């Protein structure tokens, strides 16, 4: 119990220290605004951003955009990560599958995510299907790679335990390979969420934001519109929301994976 109290205390200490820089920057901003040295149009005042946020919450546009982005990211991530898990397992466990698919997957992985946009929009148009596919594609590769690497890099001593205990293939996979690969699989999961989140913004910002087939929704479209209308206050708010939700997602997956591999850290 004492140890837990201690770790809780040190944790809040870490959080406090992490907040020093953002709070200092915020104070500097308020100070500069009060001194009247901020140039209109380039840097807006804190009070104006606050007012815009208030307005955005009142008419629901800001939480609506955030929610649309979050749902889109999670949908694409779930699809891509699941496909990546399946593919990674097959490639990690079967030498034949590796020979068949590994070179192709490795080549496709080299293509930058946004370079898929022309191809995908030709096939799928510029609607939701295209955006989700792009996000899923981004999530797929890190997940597949992490899973495959984890399965292939199970330490030989653990594999030997499976051999001397005469475990059959299925028992070897479930009791040795997958648990041993789990840290790598979870690292792939974290990275895939990160890529999915970045990809979601890119998809919203670059595809379907008024130029091609009308305004899209989500924070990406919100930011694109803000930029178009030179609304620096909205730009700042959009960026802030992207950062906050992104870090929230990251922490969620991190906490989840720490729980799953609690055997690793005493």
């Amino acid at each position: 119990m004492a140890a837990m109290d201690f770790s809780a205390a040190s944790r809040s200490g870490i959080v406090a220290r992490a907040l020093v820089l953002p709070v200092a920057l915020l104070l500097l901003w308020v100070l500069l605004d009060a001194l009247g040295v901020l140039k209109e149009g380039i840097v807006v005042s804190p009070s104006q951003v606050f007012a815009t946020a208030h307005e955005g919450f009142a008419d629901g546009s800001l939480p609506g955009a955030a929610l649309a982005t979050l749902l889109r990211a999670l949908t694409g991530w779930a699809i891509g990560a699941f496909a990546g898990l399946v593919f990674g397992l097959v490639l990690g466990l079967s030498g034949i599958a590796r020979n068949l698919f590994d070179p192709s997957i490795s080549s496709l992985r080299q293509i930058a995510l946004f370079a898929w946009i022309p191809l995908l929009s030709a096939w799928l148009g510029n609607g939701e299907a295209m955006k989700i596919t792009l996000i899923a594609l981004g999530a797929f590769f890190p997940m597949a790679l992490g899973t495959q690497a984890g399965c292939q890099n199970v330490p030989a001593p653990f594999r030997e335990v499976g051999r001397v205990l005469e475990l059959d293939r299925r028992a070897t996979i479930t009791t040795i390979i997958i648990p041993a690969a789990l840290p790598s699989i979870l690292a792939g999961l974290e990275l895939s969420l990160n890529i999915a989140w970045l990809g979601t913004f890119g998809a919203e910002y670059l595809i379907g934001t008024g130029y091609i087939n009308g305004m899209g929704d989500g924070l990406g479209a919100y930011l694109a519109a803000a930029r178009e209308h030179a609304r620096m206050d909205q730009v700042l708010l959009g960026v802030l929301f992207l950062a906050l939700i992104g870090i929230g997602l990251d922490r969620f997956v991190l906490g989840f994976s720490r729980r799953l591999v609690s055997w690793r850290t005493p």
Partner: protein
Amino acid sequence: MADALTLSRPVARDAGAVTIQDVSKTFHVENRTVHALDDVSLAIASGEFISIVGPSGCGKSTLLRFLAGLDRPDGGRITVDGEVVDRPSLKRGIVFQDHRLLPWLNVEENVALSLRSLAGAPSAKKERVQSLIDLVGLTGFEKAFPHELSGGMSQRAAIARGLAPRPPLLLLDEPLGALDSLTRSYLQDELLAIREREKSTVVMVTHDVEEAIYLSDRVVVMEPRPGRIAATFDIISRRPRHRDDPDFVATRRKITDLLAKR
């Protein structure tokens, strides 16, 4: 086959006899040929406790891995109870120096894993796991994970895992090598008591000459380049042995002299 083992009966009286015949192994390292083992032959009787000592590179661990079926010799053959060893089997339990407990399973689950491929009722398996945990003195630590155990406790759990399927032959690869001297001498006595109950043949590889004399019926001294048997010593004094008994001291002197010459 694994299912030829039974959970309930102790090891048969004449099981666990080993014949090692002209076993050789060469490794190729940077265009050089290293004779890890050169025509090694040894017969081990059922129920015997054999220790293999020798400097690093004498091939003692290689030989043990052959006995386990984890690797195969280039030449010669190894049989246990007339059956050629060509792959690992639950009939030959092995305890490694690095306990190799699976870190994601607790003590109970680690021990139970060795019974997974055996036929038998779950309740009988559970009982066997518990009796082994009791035997090695880990009662109360069934749910503990390896990272929560000391080195000595981990090695006890590994011994329990090795013994659980009642292997007629138990292979120990420097099982106490990584432990402090107090834990080590305590576990040596435990090992003798455990073997007394389980009646397996035991082949142990060790660096420690005293440990070998203290525990074994016979000590095999190996020499490197090429790896082969230099001499064997029958240890006939009754147990419990004392490290300052005259014949203990004399045997130790002979073995250390032999090892120093190489």
